[in-house]
Protein backbone atom coordinates (compact mmCIF):
# COMPACT_ATOMS: atom_id res chain seq x y z
CA UNK A 1 0.00 0.00 0.00
CA UNK A 2 1.03 3.64 -0.51
CA UNK A 3 1.27 5.73 2.63
CA UNK A 4 -0.32 8.68 0.81
CA UNK A 5 -3.56 6.64 0.77
CA UNK A 6 -3.84 7.35 4.50
CA UNK A 7 -4.23 11.07 3.76
CA UNK A 8 -7.69 10.40 2.30
CA UNK A 9 -8.94 9.40 5.80
CA UNK A 10 -11.66 11.74 7.11
CA UNK A 11 -11.38 10.44 10.70
CA UNK A 12 -14.85 8.84 10.90
CA UNK A 13 -13.64 6.21 13.39
CA UNK A 14 -15.37 3.22 11.78
CA UNK A 15 -12.04 1.37 11.94
CA UNK A 16 -11.66 1.82 15.67
CA UNK A 17 -15.32 1.03 16.33
CA UNK A 18 -14.89 -2.27 14.43
CA UNK A 19 -11.70 -3.32 16.21
CA UNK A 20 -12.08 -6.38 18.49
CA UNK A 21 -8.82 -5.56 20.26
CA UNK A 22 -9.52 -1.85 20.69
CA UNK A 23 -12.62 -2.81 22.65
CA UNK A 24 -10.34 -3.97 25.47
CA UNK A 25 -6.98 -2.30 24.92
CA UNK A 26 -5.38 1.07 24.28
CA UNK A 27 -5.14 0.27 20.56
CA UNK A 28 -6.89 2.97 18.54
CA UNK A 29 -6.19 2.02 14.96
CA UNK A 30 -7.51 5.33 13.58
CA UNK A 31 -5.16 7.29 15.81
CA UNK A 32 -2.06 5.18 15.30
CA UNK A 33 -2.37 5.23 11.52
CA UNK A 34 -3.00 9.01 11.57
CA UNK A 35 -0.06 9.61 13.92
CA UNK A 36 2.22 7.61 11.65
CA UNK A 37 1.91 10.36 9.03
CA UNK A 38 3.57 12.92 11.26
CA UNK A 39 5.78 10.94 13.61
CA UNK A 40 7.58 7.67 14.20
CA UNK A 41 5.24 5.22 15.95
CA UNK A 42 7.78 2.37 16.14
CA UNK A 43 7.87 2.44 19.94
CA UNK A 44 4.12 2.02 20.24
CA UNK A 45 3.11 -1.19 22.02
CA UNK A 46 -0.34 -0.78 20.49
CA UNK A 47 1.01 -1.73 17.06
CA UNK A 48 1.29 -5.28 18.35
CA UNK A 49 -2.21 -5.47 19.86
CA UNK A 50 -3.81 -5.83 16.40
CA UNK A 51 -4.90 -9.36 15.50
CA UNK A 52 -4.94 -8.42 11.79
CA UNK A 53 -8.61 -9.42 11.60
CA UNK A 54 -9.18 -6.94 8.73
CA UNK A 55 -12.47 -5.55 10.12
CA UNK A 56 -11.11 -1.99 9.87
CA UNK A 57 -9.93 -2.47 6.30
CA UNK A 58 -13.19 -4.11 5.23
CA UNK A 59 -15.38 -1.37 6.68
CA UNK A 60 -13.34 1.74 5.81
CA UNK A 61 -15.64 3.98 3.73
CA UNK A 62 -12.58 5.39 1.97
CA UNK A 63 -11.27 1.95 1.05
CA UNK A 64 -8.02 2.59 2.92
CA UNK A 65 -6.03 -0.57 3.52
CA UNK A 66 -5.88 0.02 7.27
CA UNK A 67 -4.64 -3.46 8.27
CA UNK A 68 -1.98 -3.35 5.56
CA UNK A 69 -0.91 0.00 7.04
CA UNK A 70 -0.50 -1.63 10.46
CA UNK A 71 1.61 -4.39 8.87
CA UNK A 72 3.79 -1.76 7.18
CA UNK A 73 4.24 0.17 10.43
CA UNK A 74 5.17 -3.03 12.21
CA UNK A 75 7.85 -3.86 9.64
CA UNK A 76 9.30 -0.37 10.06
CA UNK A 77 9.40 -0.91 13.84
CA UNK A 78 11.12 -4.28 13.39
CA UNK A 79 13.80 -2.69 11.17
CA UNK A 80 14.56 -0.41 14.11
CA UNK A 81 14.97 -3.45 16.35
CA UNK A 82 11.64 -3.06 18.15
CA UNK A 83 10.88 -6.75 18.55
CA UNK A 84 8.89 -8.27 21.41
CA UNK A 85 10.72 -11.19 23.11
CA UNK A 86 7.94 -13.70 22.38
CA UNK A 87 8.01 -12.82 18.66
CA UNK A 88 11.79 -13.14 18.54
CA UNK A 89 11.40 -16.63 19.98
CA UNK A 90 8.92 -17.63 17.24
CA UNK A 91 11.36 -16.27 14.65
CA UNK A 92 14.18 -18.37 16.11
CA UNK A 93 12.00 -21.47 15.86
CA UNK A 94 11.50 -20.71 12.18
CA UNK A 95 15.23 -20.20 11.64
CA UNK A 96 16.19 -23.38 13.43
CA UNK A 97 13.42 -25.78 12.44
CA UNK A 98 11.53 -24.29 9.48
CA UNK A 99 8.40 -24.29 11.64
CA UNK A 100 6.94 -21.51 13.80
CA UNK A 101 5.68 -24.24 16.10
CA UNK A 102 7.95 -27.28 15.99
CA UNK A 103 6.96 -30.75 17.17
CA UNK A 104 7.59 -31.63 20.84
CA UNK A 105 7.83 -34.95 22.66
CA UNK A 106 4.24 -34.84 23.98
CA UNK A 107 2.74 -34.43 20.52
CA UNK A 108 5.16 -36.82 18.84
CA UNK A 109 3.87 -39.44 21.30
CA UNK A 110 0.24 -38.58 20.48
CA UNK A 111 0.96 -38.93 16.75
CA UNK A 112 2.41 -42.37 17.33
CA UNK A 113 -0.50 -43.41 19.56
CA UNK A 114 -3.12 -42.50 16.95
CA UNK A 115 -1.21 -44.20 14.16
CA UNK A 116 0.21 -41.18 12.34
CA UNK A 117 3.71 -41.43 10.92
CA UNK A 118 6.20 -38.59 11.31
CA UNK A 119 5.44 -35.47 9.28
CA UNK A 120 6.68 -35.12 5.72
CA UNK A 121 7.82 -31.53 6.22
CA UNK A 122 11.27 -29.94 6.51
CA UNK A 123 11.67 -31.63 9.89
CA UNK A 124 12.14 -34.95 8.07
CA UNK A 125 14.27 -33.72 5.16
CA UNK A 126 17.56 -32.02 6.15
CA UNK A 127 18.22 -30.81 2.59
CA UNK A 128 14.83 -29.06 2.57
CA UNK A 129 15.57 -27.41 5.92
CA UNK A 130 18.91 -26.26 4.52
CA UNK A 131 16.98 -24.59 1.66
CA UNK A 132 14.77 -22.73 4.14
CA UNK A 133 17.80 -21.58 6.11
CA UNK A 134 19.51 -20.46 2.94
CA UNK A 135 16.47 -18.37 1.95
CA UNK A 136 16.24 -16.80 5.41
CA UNK A 137 19.91 -15.81 5.10
CA UNK A 138 19.43 -14.54 1.58
CA UNK A 139 16.57 -12.21 2.57
CA UNK A 140 18.49 -11.04 5.64
CA UNK A 141 15.91 -12.39 8.08
CA UNK A 142 18.58 -13.95 10.31
CA UNK A 143 20.23 -10.54 10.72
CA UNK A 144 16.89 -8.78 11.16
CA UNK A 145 15.98 -10.76 14.27
CA UNK A 146 19.43 -10.72 15.91
CA UNK A 147 19.52 -9.11 19.34
Amino acid at each position, binding site marked *: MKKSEILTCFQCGTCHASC*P*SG*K*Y*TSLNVRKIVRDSMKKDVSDSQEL*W*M*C*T*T*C*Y*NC*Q*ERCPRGIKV*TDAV*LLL*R*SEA*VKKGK*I*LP*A*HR*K*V*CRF*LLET*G*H*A*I*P*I*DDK*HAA*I*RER*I*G*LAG*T*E*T*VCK*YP*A*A*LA*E*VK*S*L*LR*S*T*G*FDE*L*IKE
Partner: protein
Amino acid sequence: MKELSLFLGCLIPNRYPGIEKATKLVLDRLGIRWSELKEASCCPAPGVFRSFDRITWLTLASRNLVLAEKKDNDILTLCNGCFSSLSDANSILRSDISLRNEVNMHLKKINKEFLGTIEVRHIIEFFYRDLGTDKLKKEIEKPLELRTAVHYGCHMLKPTRERKLGGAECPVFFDELVEATGSLSVPYEGKTSCCGAGGGVRSAMLETSLKMTEYKLERMKKAGVECIVDACPFCHLQYDGGQVELAKAGKLYNLPVVHYSQLLGLALGYTPEEVGLFLNEIRNPEFEAKMEAIWRKNLKSSG
Protein backbone atom coordinates in the same frame (compact mmCIF):
# COMPACT_ATOMS: atom_id res chain seq x y z
CA MET B 1 -10.49 -34.67 -10.00
CA LYS B 2 -6.82 -33.66 -10.01
CA GLU B 3 -4.66 -34.65 -7.06
CA LEU B 4 -4.29 -32.05 -4.31
CA SER B 5 -1.17 -31.33 -2.29
CA LEU B 6 -2.16 -31.43 1.35
CA PHE B 7 -0.43 -28.59 3.22
CA LEU B 8 -0.59 -29.28 6.96
CA GLY B 9 1.44 -26.33 8.25
CA CYS B 10 2.73 -26.31 11.85
CA LEU B 11 -0.13 -26.41 14.33
CA ILE B 12 -2.05 -29.36 12.90
CA PRO B 13 0.76 -31.94 12.75
CA ASN B 14 2.61 -30.57 15.79
CA ARG B 15 -0.22 -29.69 18.23
CA TYR B 16 -3.56 -31.05 16.96
CA PRO B 17 -2.72 -34.24 15.02
CA GLY B 18 -6.32 -35.42 15.48
CA ILE B 19 -7.31 -32.86 12.85
CA GLU B 20 -4.71 -34.32 10.48
CA LYS B 21 -5.99 -37.84 11.00
CA ALA B 22 -9.63 -36.83 10.55
CA THR B 23 -8.82 -34.90 7.37
CA LYS B 24 -6.95 -37.78 5.77
CA LEU B 25 -9.79 -40.20 6.59
CA VAL B 26 -12.43 -37.83 5.25
CA LEU B 27 -10.58 -37.08 2.00
CA ASP B 28 -10.07 -40.80 1.34
CA ARG B 29 -13.69 -41.60 2.12
CA LEU B 30 -14.93 -38.89 -0.28
CA GLY B 31 -12.64 -40.12 -3.05
CA ILE B 32 -10.54 -36.97 -3.15
CA ARG B 33 -7.02 -37.68 -4.37
CA TRP B 34 -4.32 -36.12 -2.22
CA SER B 35 -0.71 -36.45 -1.19
CA GLU B 36 1.16 -34.63 1.54
CA LEU B 37 3.29 -31.76 0.28
CA LYS B 38 6.73 -33.13 1.05
CA GLU B 39 9.55 -30.86 2.26
CA ALA B 40 7.15 -28.01 3.06
CA SER B 41 7.99 -25.50 5.80
CA CYS B 42 5.86 -23.11 7.84
CA CYS B 43 3.56 -21.26 5.42
CA PRO B 44 5.02 -18.78 6.95
CA ALA B 45 2.46 -17.57 9.47
CA PRO B 46 0.87 -14.27 8.49
CA GLY B 47 0.88 -12.72 11.98
CA VAL B 48 4.53 -12.42 12.96
CA PHE B 49 6.37 -13.12 9.71
CA ARG B 50 4.24 -11.01 7.38
CA SER B 51 4.49 -8.18 9.92
CA PHE B 52 8.26 -8.53 10.27
CA ASP B 53 9.44 -8.59 6.69
CA ARG B 54 7.28 -8.82 3.58
CA ILE B 55 10.03 -10.14 1.31
CA THR B 56 10.95 -12.94 3.71
CA TRP B 57 7.29 -13.84 4.08
CA LEU B 58 6.79 -13.89 0.29
CA THR B 59 10.00 -15.83 -0.36
CA LEU B 60 9.29 -18.61 2.12
CA ALA B 61 5.67 -18.87 0.97
CA SER B 62 6.83 -19.03 -2.65
CA ARG B 63 9.11 -21.98 -1.86
CA ASN B 64 6.05 -23.91 -0.62
CA LEU B 65 4.08 -22.87 -3.70
CA VAL B 66 6.93 -24.02 -5.98
CA LEU B 67 6.94 -27.48 -4.33
CA ALA B 68 3.30 -27.87 -5.41
CA GLU B 69 3.93 -26.29 -8.82
CA LYS B 70 6.50 -29.02 -9.51
CA LYS B 71 3.78 -31.62 -8.94
CA ASP B 72 1.23 -29.55 -10.86
CA ASN B 73 -1.08 -29.86 -7.84
CA ASP B 74 -3.27 -27.24 -6.25
CA ILE B 75 -2.59 -26.81 -2.53
CA LEU B 76 -5.23 -27.78 0.03
CA THR B 77 -4.93 -25.98 3.40
CA LEU B 78 -6.80 -26.75 6.64
CA CYS B 79 -5.83 -23.53 8.39
CA ASN B 80 -6.88 -19.92 7.87
CA GLY B 81 -3.33 -18.73 8.46
CA CYS B 82 -1.77 -21.08 5.89
CA PHE B 83 -4.57 -20.22 3.47
CA SER B 84 -4.01 -16.51 4.00
CA SER B 85 -0.23 -16.61 3.57
CA LEU B 86 -0.12 -18.98 0.62
CA SER B 87 -3.04 -17.57 -1.36
CA ASP B 88 -2.04 -13.95 -0.75
CA ALA B 89 1.59 -14.64 -1.69
CA ASN B 90 0.41 -16.51 -4.79
CA SER B 91 -1.72 -13.63 -6.02
CA ILE B 92 0.78 -10.90 -5.08
CA LEU B 93 3.60 -12.70 -6.93
CA ARG B 94 1.40 -13.34 -9.94
CA SER B 95 0.44 -9.70 -10.32
CA ASP B 96 3.53 -7.78 -9.16
CA ILE B 97 6.40 -8.48 -11.54
CA SER B 98 9.04 -6.56 -9.62
CA LEU B 99 8.25 -8.43 -6.40
CA ARG B 100 8.25 -11.71 -8.31
CA ASN B 101 11.68 -10.91 -9.75
CA GLU B 102 12.99 -10.07 -6.30
CA VAL B 103 11.62 -13.30 -4.81
CA ASN B 104 12.91 -15.37 -7.72
CA MET B 105 16.36 -13.90 -7.20
CA HIS B 106 16.34 -15.46 -3.72
CA LEU B 107 14.77 -18.71 -4.95
CA LYS B 108 17.47 -19.04 -7.61
CA LYS B 109 19.98 -19.72 -4.84
CA ILE B 110 18.15 -22.98 -4.12
CA ASN B 111 17.47 -23.70 -7.80
CA LYS B 112 13.78 -22.87 -7.67
CA GLU B 113 11.56 -20.44 -9.54
CA PHE B 114 8.05 -19.22 -8.84
CA LEU B 115 5.82 -19.58 -11.90
CA GLY B 116 2.33 -18.96 -10.54
CA THR B 117 0.74 -22.03 -12.10
CA ILE B 118 -1.30 -23.47 -9.23
CA GLU B 119 -4.17 -22.42 -6.95
CA VAL B 120 -4.42 -22.41 -3.14
CA ARG B 121 -7.58 -23.85 -1.62
CA HIS B 122 -9.07 -23.92 1.87
CA ILE B 123 -10.80 -27.18 2.76
CA ILE B 124 -14.05 -25.36 3.64
CA GLU B 125 -14.40 -23.48 0.36
CA PHE B 126 -13.15 -26.59 -1.47
CA PHE B 127 -15.92 -28.74 0.04
CA TYR B 128 -18.48 -26.04 -0.62
CA ARG B 129 -17.54 -25.25 -4.20
CA ASP B 130 -16.11 -28.48 -5.59
CA LEU B 131 -18.17 -31.04 -3.69
CA GLY B 132 -21.29 -29.13 -2.70
CA THR B 133 -23.57 -29.57 0.30
CA ASP B 134 -26.10 -31.71 -1.60
CA LYS B 135 -23.48 -34.28 -2.51
CA LEU B 136 -22.07 -34.18 0.99
CA LYS B 137 -25.50 -34.80 2.52
CA LYS B 138 -25.84 -38.01 0.51
CA GLU B 139 -22.63 -39.31 2.08
CA ILE B 140 -23.71 -38.73 5.68
CA GLU B 141 -24.16 -41.97 7.62
CA LYS B 142 -24.61 -40.72 11.16
CA PRO B 143 -26.49 -37.41 11.46
CA LEU B 144 -24.99 -35.68 14.49
CA GLU B 145 -27.83 -33.49 15.82
CA LEU B 146 -25.41 -31.19 17.63
CA ARG B 147 -26.09 -27.57 18.53
CA THR B 148 -22.92 -25.89 17.30
CA ALA B 149 -21.33 -22.44 17.33
CA VAL B 150 -19.73 -22.03 13.90
CA HIS B 151 -16.57 -19.91 13.91
CA TYR B 152 -15.32 -18.91 10.44
CA GLY B 153 -12.17 -17.15 11.62
CA CYS B 154 -10.90 -13.95 10.04
CA HIS B 155 -8.49 -14.95 7.31
CA MET B 156 -10.72 -17.44 5.53
CA LEU B 157 -13.03 -14.53 4.58
CA LYS B 158 -10.95 -11.38 4.74
CA PRO B 159 -9.73 -9.37 2.94
CA THR B 160 -12.89 -10.09 0.91
CA ARG B 161 -11.48 -8.47 -2.23
CA GLU B 162 -8.74 -11.11 -2.34
CA ARG B 163 -10.66 -14.10 -0.94
CA LYS B 164 -13.65 -13.75 -3.29
CA LEU B 165 -15.88 -15.83 -0.99
CA GLY B 166 -18.61 -13.23 -0.65
CA GLY B 167 -19.17 -10.77 2.18
CA ALA B 168 -17.61 -11.14 5.60
CA GLU B 169 -20.46 -9.63 7.66
CA CYS B 170 -22.93 -12.49 7.34
CA PRO B 171 -21.42 -15.46 5.50
CA VAL B 172 -23.42 -18.71 5.23
CA PHE B 173 -21.38 -21.31 3.33
CA PHE B 174 -19.61 -22.78 6.36
CA ASP B 175 -22.93 -22.96 8.28
CA GLU B 176 -24.43 -24.89 5.36
CA LEU B 177 -21.55 -27.37 5.46
CA VAL B 178 -22.00 -27.84 9.21
CA GLU B 179 -25.74 -28.35 8.79
CA ALA B 180 -25.07 -30.91 6.06
CA THR B 181 -23.74 -33.16 8.86
CA GLY B 182 -27.16 -33.08 10.53
CA SER B 183 -26.06 -30.51 13.11
CA LEU B 184 -27.54 -27.11 13.78
CA SER B 185 -25.57 -23.88 13.40
CA VAL B 186 -26.93 -21.78 16.26
CA PRO B 187 -26.83 -17.99 15.69
CA TYR B 188 -24.87 -16.07 18.32
CA GLU B 189 -23.84 -12.48 18.88
CA GLY B 190 -20.38 -11.57 17.60
CA LYS B 191 -20.24 -14.62 15.34
CA THR B 192 -17.80 -13.10 12.84
CA SER B 193 -15.64 -11.53 15.54
CA CYS B 194 -12.00 -12.61 15.93
CA CYS B 195 -10.98 -15.43 18.32
CA GLY B 196 -8.15 -13.20 19.55
CA ALA B 197 -5.16 -15.30 18.48
CA GLY B 198 -3.96 -13.69 15.26
CA GLY B 199 -1.37 -11.07 14.43
CA GLY B 200 1.12 -12.36 16.99
CA VAL B 201 -1.20 -11.23 19.82
CA ARG B 202 -1.54 -14.67 21.39
CA SER B 203 2.22 -15.23 21.55
CA ALA B 204 3.17 -11.78 22.89
CA MET B 205 0.06 -10.52 24.70
CA LEU B 206 -1.83 -13.53 26.01
CA GLU B 207 -4.08 -11.60 28.39
CA THR B 208 -5.25 -9.26 25.64
CA SER B 209 -5.92 -12.14 23.28
CA LEU B 210 -7.94 -13.97 25.96
CA LYS B 211 -10.25 -10.99 26.43
CA MET B 212 -11.36 -11.40 22.83
CA THR B 213 -11.73 -15.16 23.34
CA GLU B 214 -13.85 -14.61 26.42
CA TYR B 215 -16.12 -12.27 24.47
CA LYS B 216 -16.76 -15.09 22.03
CA LEU B 217 -17.08 -17.90 24.60
CA GLU B 218 -19.60 -15.98 26.68
CA ARG B 219 -21.86 -15.43 23.69
CA MET B 220 -21.53 -18.99 22.44
CA LYS B 221 -22.40 -20.31 25.87
CA LYS B 222 -25.39 -17.96 26.11
CA ALA B 223 -26.68 -19.34 22.80
CA GLY B 224 -26.75 -22.81 24.39
CA VAL B 225 -24.36 -24.62 22.06
CA GLU B 226 -22.78 -27.99 22.75
CA CYS B 227 -19.52 -27.35 20.90
CA ILE B 228 -17.56 -24.91 18.74
CA VAL B 229 -16.85 -25.84 15.11
CA ASP B 230 -13.86 -24.10 13.53
CA ALA B 231 -11.88 -24.21 10.31
CA CYS B 232 -8.45 -23.27 11.59
CA PRO B 233 -6.04 -24.84 14.10
CA PHE B 234 -4.98 -21.44 15.43
CA CYS B 235 -8.58 -20.52 16.32
CA HIS B 236 -8.82 -24.11 17.63
CA LEU B 237 -5.79 -23.55 19.89
CA GLN B 238 -7.12 -20.20 21.05
CA TYR B 239 -10.47 -21.69 22.06
CA ASP B 240 -9.09 -24.93 23.47
CA GLY B 241 -5.89 -23.77 25.17
CA GLY B 242 -7.56 -20.43 25.91
CA GLN B 243 -10.26 -22.13 27.97
CA VAL B 244 -7.56 -23.82 30.06
CA GLU B 245 -5.88 -20.45 30.60
CA LEU B 246 -9.20 -18.79 31.49
CA ALA B 247 -10.05 -21.64 33.87
CA LYS B 248 -6.96 -20.72 35.91
CA ALA B 249 -8.70 -17.40 36.60
CA GLY B 250 -11.83 -19.28 37.65
CA LYS B 251 -13.65 -18.71 34.36
CA LEU B 252 -15.11 -22.03 33.32
CA TYR B 253 -16.76 -22.55 29.93
CA ASN B 254 -16.00 -26.19 29.20
CA LEU B 255 -16.98 -25.92 25.54
CA PRO B 256 -15.55 -28.68 23.33
CA VAL B 257 -13.73 -27.47 20.20
CA VAL B 258 -14.07 -29.39 16.92
CA HIS B 259 -12.43 -28.76 13.54
CA TYR B 260 -14.79 -29.25 10.59
CA SER B 261 -12.77 -32.25 9.33
CA GLN B 262 -13.47 -33.97 12.66
CA LEU B 263 -17.18 -33.10 12.60
CA LEU B 264 -17.53 -34.39 9.06
CA GLY B 265 -15.54 -37.52 9.94
CA LEU B 266 -18.02 -38.33 12.71
CA ALA B 267 -20.97 -37.82 10.38
CA LEU B 268 -19.32 -40.07 7.80
CA GLY B 269 -19.26 -42.85 10.39
CA TYR B 270 -15.80 -42.69 11.94
CA THR B 271 -15.54 -43.13 15.70
CA PRO B 272 -14.74 -40.20 18.03
CA GLU B 273 -11.32 -41.82 18.62
CA GLU B 274 -10.61 -42.16 14.90
CA VAL B 275 -11.14 -38.43 14.31
CA GLY B 276 -9.10 -37.48 17.39
CA LEU B 277 -12.08 -35.84 19.06
CA PHE B 278 -10.81 -36.32 22.58
CA LEU B 279 -7.24 -35.09 22.06
CA ASN B 280 -8.01 -31.52 23.07
CA GLU B 281 -6.97 -29.88 26.33
CA ILE B 282 -10.63 -29.24 27.22
CA ARG B 283 -12.43 -32.44 28.10
CA ASN B 284 -16.19 -32.39 28.59
CA PRO B 285 -17.49 -35.79 29.83
CA GLU B 286 -21.10 -34.95 29.00
CA PHE B 287 -20.22 -34.15 25.38
CA GLU B 288 -17.98 -37.19 25.09
CA ALA B 289 -20.73 -39.49 26.42
CA LYS B 290 -23.21 -37.99 23.96
CA MET B 291 -20.84 -38.49 21.03
CA GLU B 292 -20.19 -42.08 22.01
CA ALA B 293 -23.95 -42.64 22.37
CA ILE B 294 -24.73 -41.15 18.95
CA TRP B 295 -22.10 -43.37 17.44
CA ARG B 296 -23.46 -46.52 19.12
CA LYS B 297 -27.11 -45.67 18.41
CA ASN B 298 -26.49 -45.11 14.74
CA LEU B 299 -24.36 -48.21 14.60
CA LYS B 300 -27.29 -50.24 15.93
CA SER B 301 -29.85 -48.68 13.58
CA SER B 302 -27.63 -49.13 10.52
CA GLY B 303 -26.80 -52.73 11.50
